[in-house]
């Protein structure tokens, strides 16, 4: 199985010296199981890895938006409701200048980033208070308001990673050898 192969690869790559060094290591970490740290394991990868079960639609998200988001992000996500709460909808072309405001519509490369950030950080005064269904619904609402999905599209672990973001292919790695 994959875990076994991984361990074998590490042992091969690092050789015997590394194995000996590890035995000499303080080893003060307490073993914990993946299931015991599930509550913290919230990062979503761009291919959809780790997206939770659940679903939501733009219509469901619209209601939630009014209750949870509008006070800061303003009506319809246009921004300007509260200092620091940038626009969630729209965005000028990135050719307007190097200080162009970066938005979900004009800039984000992956729709998973929207889900991930709402779930880990929003609302600012009560983070982690939304259910996964609510996060899917809000993500769907914002993506639909930006015309990145249809008004009745359902967002879930399968559909969200498939949303094609317009700016995805415009990123360059200045230091590929550092990765």
């Amino acid at each position, binding site marked *: 199985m994959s875990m076994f192969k991984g361990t074998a*690869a*590490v042992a091969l790559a690092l050789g015997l010296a590394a194995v000996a060094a590890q035995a000499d290591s303080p080893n*003060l970490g307490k073993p914990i199981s*993946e299931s015991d*740290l599930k509550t913290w394991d919230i*990062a979503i990868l*761009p291919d959809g890895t780790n997206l939770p079960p659940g679903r939501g639609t733009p219509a469901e998200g619209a209601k939630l938006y009014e209750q949870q988001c509008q006070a800061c992000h303003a009506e319809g996500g246009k921004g300007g409701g509260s200092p620091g709460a940038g626009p969630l909808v729209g965005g000028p072309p*990135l050719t307007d200048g190097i*200080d162009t405001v970066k938005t979900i519509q004009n800039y984000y490369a992956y729709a998973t980033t929207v889900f991930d950030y709402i779930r880990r950080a929003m609302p600012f005064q009560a983070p982690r208070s939304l259910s996964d269904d609510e996060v899917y619904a809000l993500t769907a609402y914002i993506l639909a308001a930006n015309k990145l999905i249809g008004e009745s599209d359902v967002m879930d672990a399968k559909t969200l990673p498939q949303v094609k973001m317009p700016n995805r292919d415009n990123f360059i790695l200045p230091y590929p050898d550092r990765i």
Partner: protein
Amino acid sequence: MTDLARRGRAPTPEFIAGNGLINRRALLGSGLAVAGALATGATATGAAAEPLKEDPWGLEFGQITPALQTPSPFEKAVVRTLSNPEGELRNSHARTPHHLLNGTVTPNSLHFSINHCGIPNIDPAQHKLVIHGMVRQPLEFTLDTLSRYPLVTRMHFLECAGNSAPMFSNEPMQITAQALHGLASNSEWTGVPLSVLLDEAGIDARAKWLIAEGADAQHLDRSIPVKKAYDDALVVVYQNGERLMPGNGYPMRLLVPGYQGNMNVKFLRRLKAVDQPAMSMFETKTYSQLLPGGKTWRFHFLMEVKSFITHPSLGHNLKDRGFYAISGVAYSGAGRISKVMVSADGGKSWGEAALQGPVHDKAFTRFIMPWRWDGQPAVLVSRAWDEAGNAQPMRAEFVAARGQTSKPLTSPLGFPNQHYNSTTSWAVDGKGEIKHVYV
């Protein structure tokens, strides 16, 4: 000349570049000899010293020694400047007053700090760090257990990717070195090499990234290459000998030396080994650089070679002609500083500055250039090189590649773009007043 023969003599200064720059070799002998030499060239005020008398603080019993000492009340202007003084529900940051400090170590109370959702009040006895994902055995660490490891101590700078962003303005903003460059600081950090902890957890050879996540209210996360983790990353538990300041990540933070500040995740609670980057909001949006034409640099990471003059700089007007030690800091995320050149004539001629050792890897290095100001207008510029051979770009060169704003910036608190590292120039006029200029 022997030391004895030099004593009491005032050698003639050797000018090496325009507008009064003096060969740094003048600094190698006695400092008094240098000062003496320059005083003979131009007397400062001409006024003789007054007869001495006893001062009041010498005539009464002083304050009893306190448990935690704080700076003299006469130094009350030496504070960080705030971006969010009203405490609005948004990010808040504070900038280091470079023009009021010297040496290379930033005092902990003055280290810059940026917090996107406030500073959490973390109980160190309850805080945990877990390492999991593509590892043989997920592990949980506490501040106590990490503090039992053989700790390593290193000097490193930390710099926000948005530091110096006011210089993207198409016209120079008349603001201090603190407002321009105050989102960089330098400390002695003590912690556990991350490679030790990853080896103990048995990281899978196919894991290329670590998702590092904080315990703050947005659980800020960044993707860190495993390559960097094994190069020189630390899980830091002390800052300049004491536990971390809350705004700098108490009780533990990630340190990825030379990489953009935001990657040095504070309040570190989780490291997950994965095979692809997370494309978190901060790496996919905030800390990536939009280029002229609309393409973007992603995963830039490296804080490239930079220097700026802190003394004299905007805010210090020169009162008298005569000797000044031009000094400032230079640093590079690519290694040690190898050379700093200084100009007093806006870049027409240059002299090599002295570097105060020891010169540490990816750390502030202070440079000094002796200078005699003759009262004429001068433009002071510094330019640094690192051991990898990278030269700090002149502003025109930088702007040609990276662009600038089409309208002047009106606030130093905005971030029109990221990763600004060109030279900074200070113009001294005939009255000794200092302005920020582009040359």
